[in-house]
């Protein structure tokens, strides 16, 4: 086993592409080290990307925000501009693990770990976030929902690294929110989760909407019908009930140690309602 800390993203991609055995990217390590401890992975090469210039930064650009792959989630919460523009994304990122894990974990790691229950992913999908994917001599930008393809599986090719997550700058009258259900108040993996992102028109009606659900299918799902229900509404009681129904119906959950099919279906609808209500209020809706 080797541990290497490259200084450029190109070197990192090259190392990964050129490795003969199992190679792993180390950013926060909060998933990788747990898998190593459990014996689920024994990498031959660990590529620590934290020394790569720029990867540990959040950059504000004309188009919005670029969050580097090595930025710990705790730092997202400390960035007031990001917090103001995308409170739902930030609250989702801040829900990952404990304070201890917050100091290490990253939203890119959360995305690439490809768990259907990943906290930041429904919020990122709802936000329409994009991932910058760098490979040996390649660079492409894709929608975040295109990264995970199933539990623990991604669309990334050997040697590819997600360098950053891009979030658009905010239109007026916009708001997002993320809610998850866990049995305790902290330290749990989401049993069900919902991310909602809304923009309102001048009358306070929903103009555009994106809603994503977590832990109810093999990957986080973007529920198109939910957006259709929301658009044009002022989130009256009937709309919220329809939203809940559509979201419950969109679930394809399983029974496991964390919850039952019935529970996940029901609670997906409840969380969608509640997250939509919060996002609506954040967008200035009344």
């Amino acid at each position, binding site marked *: 086993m080797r541990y290497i800390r490259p200084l450029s993203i190109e070197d990192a991609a090259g190392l990964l592409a050129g490795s003969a055995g199992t190679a792993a990217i180390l950013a926060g390590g909060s998933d990788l080290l747990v898998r190593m401890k459990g014996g689920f992975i024994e990498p031959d090469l660990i590529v620590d990307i934290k020394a790569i210039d720029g990867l540990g930064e959040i950059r504000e650009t004309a188009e919005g925000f670029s969050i580097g792959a090595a930025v710990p989630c705790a730092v997202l919460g400390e960035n007031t501009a990001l917090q103001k523009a995308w409170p739902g994304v930030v609250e989702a990122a801040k829900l990952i693990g404990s304070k201890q894990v917050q100091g290490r974990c990253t939203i890119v790691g959360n995305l690439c770990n490809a768990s259907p229950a990943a906290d930041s992913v429904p919020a990122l999908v709802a936000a329409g976030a994009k991932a910058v994917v760098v490979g040996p001599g390649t660079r492409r930008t894709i929608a975040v929902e295109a990264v995970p393809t199933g539990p623990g599986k991604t669309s990334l090719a050997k040697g590819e690294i997600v360098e950053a997550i891009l979030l658009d700058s905010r239109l007026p009258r916009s708001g997002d929110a993320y809610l998850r*259900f866990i*049995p305790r108040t*902290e*330290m749990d*993996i989401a049993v069900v989760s919902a991310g909602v992102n809304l923009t309102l028109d001048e009358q306070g009606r929903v103009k555009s909407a994106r809603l994503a659900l977590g832990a109810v299918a093999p990957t986080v799902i973007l529920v198109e019908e939910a957006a259709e229900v929301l658009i044009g509404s002022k989130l009256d009681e009937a709309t919220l009930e329809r939203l809940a129904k559509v979201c419950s119906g969109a679930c394809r959950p399983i029974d496991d140690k964390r*919850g039952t099919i*019935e529970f996940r279906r029901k609670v997906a609808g*409840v969380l969608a309602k509640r997250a939509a209500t919060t996002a609506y209020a954040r967008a200035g809706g009344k």
Partner: protein
Amino acid sequence: MNFDPRYSGRNFTSVGTRPIRPDGVDKVTGRARYGADFNMAGQLVGRVLRSPHAHATIRKIDTSKAEKLAGVKAVITAADLPDLTDGDAAMYDILDNCMARKKALYDGHAVAAVAAVDARTARQALKLIEVDYEVLPHVTDVDEAMKHSAPLINDAIFTEGLEQKPVKPSNVTKRTQYGHGDIHEGFGQADFVVERSFKTEQTHQGYIEPHACVANVSSDGTADLWVCTQGHFVYRQHCAQLLGMEASKLRVTSSEIGGGFGGKTHVWAEPVALALSRKAGRPVKLVMTRDEVFRASGPTSATSIDVRIGARKDGTITAAEATLRYSCGPYAGTWAEIGAMTAFACYKLENVRTVGYEVLVNRPKTAAYRAPSAPMAAFAVESAVDELAKEIGMDPVEFRIRNAAQEGTRSSYGPVYGPIGIGPTLEAVKNHPHMKAPLGKNQGRGMACGFWFNFGGQTCTDLNIGMDGSVSLAVGTVDVGGSRASLSLVAAEELGIPYEQIKAVVADTSSLGYNDMTDGSRGTFSSSMATISAARNAIKVLRERAAQMWDIPVDDVVWEKGHAIAKGEKYDNLAALSLKEIAAASGKTGGPIAGHSELVADGAGVSFATHICDIEVDPETGSTRVLRYTVVQDAGKAVHPTYVEGQYQGGAAQGIGWALNEEYIYGKDGRLQNPGFLDYRIPVCSDLPMIDTQILEIPNPNHPYGVRGVGETSIVPPLAAIANAVSNAAGVRMTHIPMSPPRILAAIEAERGG
């Protein structure tokens, strides 16, 4: 000198104060040494290979490849731990649990172990051990295991305690029965009867420190064992017997212990570590991973309980009955029996009958967990009691007060009670402001009572007085939560000297006589009795020495407030001699001054508690929040009240976790799905409110200061108190613990649907 353990009322100087514990600074600076914090020169790393199957015959184990791996110094299987138990069935079960002999009986059962130069080599070696399993059908559910069609876990088990000896083996090892009166007649007199079935899932003690030990066996037959344990003397006995060693040649030192709650009263990997060290000829350190702790140590029983209680319109219970089925893991136990004994212990009953069934399942061996078996029985009984009060139209507290046991009541398990605290705890709850606080929407209040026996047992304490008058107190009961502080207070009280003048230590097995474990809430009860006795013996010596110094008869010397005083007018010119002055002269008056005590501390007082809690339920998700929690419990006498409160709060918190979220989840394959703190959800700080406590002191007549045990009773009421609160908040009776959100939501939906 004959020691008189009877209670004598007195005014205390030290007992009842709240000084800082003697082991405190080491624990806040990281210097305290726990099981895994000790190392020996040349030490190897031990690791255990565990069965992935819930039930399988072990056809063959091939260790040859592992043995050839560079850095591997020993590989052992059951063959290296030959059966020396000589027909002792209980010891054989311990041996088999430490290392599977013919069959692997649960997911996580040890089948082989290695000692290697480092962890990586040890891990690799485990992978090279080839075990040929024949997988057998398994059963993990307690009710399923009782069915005739269930796979047999041990075909030599024929149920004990039946009127007719069974002709076929089964998974039920024993039936036991308790009670008195005639329940048929009693139910005949009832105007209201409540009958319900309950289930509770298996939980783990959840101590934060995994089992850890360092074993060092010499070729001369002597050995040392450093280990985190609740009872190093018992560990010595068990290890010595299983390894064929002489007990006195095995010195066991108890490390600081990072929680036990009953889980560290059983040997698990310690005999394995000793066997590895013996084979390798080097010290071996063996530390369990968290996954191993869950899969292969500790858990309590899963249960299935039926309860029937009848009462007259006036609120008098006329009959009570319960059938309790407790899982034991794959080895015989007495868990249902304890449940059967404790179930109705809070009440004064004319007609009562409880029947317990001990049930084998393919799960880890059931171990004691804080008032073992009592919380589940209390959950079932106290839920039914609440429901019955509701049917009659009585306040649940009043209903319990009306039926509470008192001095002179025949307990449901047999003996007649002496002075007890159930009535006072109920009266205190009735008058507690918590009971009158307003509740909001979706909020409910519940209360429940609990009982635990408390134990005494064999205890040995040495008290040595230094030449400077400082006192070292050597005790043999492991300090699990501040007992060195409380025992120092007791020594200070008896000797009449300041607490700070005393240093208490837990002595190793070669430095002190045998002590039973710190279990059954006995630590402070028993060791304080032995400390009082040792101090009184020391005082006798101090008086003799003072008499020598004054050259007067010892009968004229009394001990008061840390001083020898010559009694009588003729001695008016003699100034009192302090303990320090007598100690300073000890070299000339007969040598070292000490007091010793070896005794069986019997007469531990039974203990009762009543808890109140408020819960909010989210009716859309089944989520719960504990809003407020109050514990009222009888301590007999609180020696160090802060640590008594700590025991009350800690037991309540464990009970809250059990009630709401903690459970062993097995897959269809018989494998444990959640062997980690991520999905075995013990309460975190943000899950709980402050836990208010009220200490009652109803003296135990069988202890000089009136002390009862306090450690365990606090985990008995929470399951029921929370179930009653959730039921009141959600408007539906909860019968399955834990009341996880999916279970609560399903119950609410079923109620709405029905």
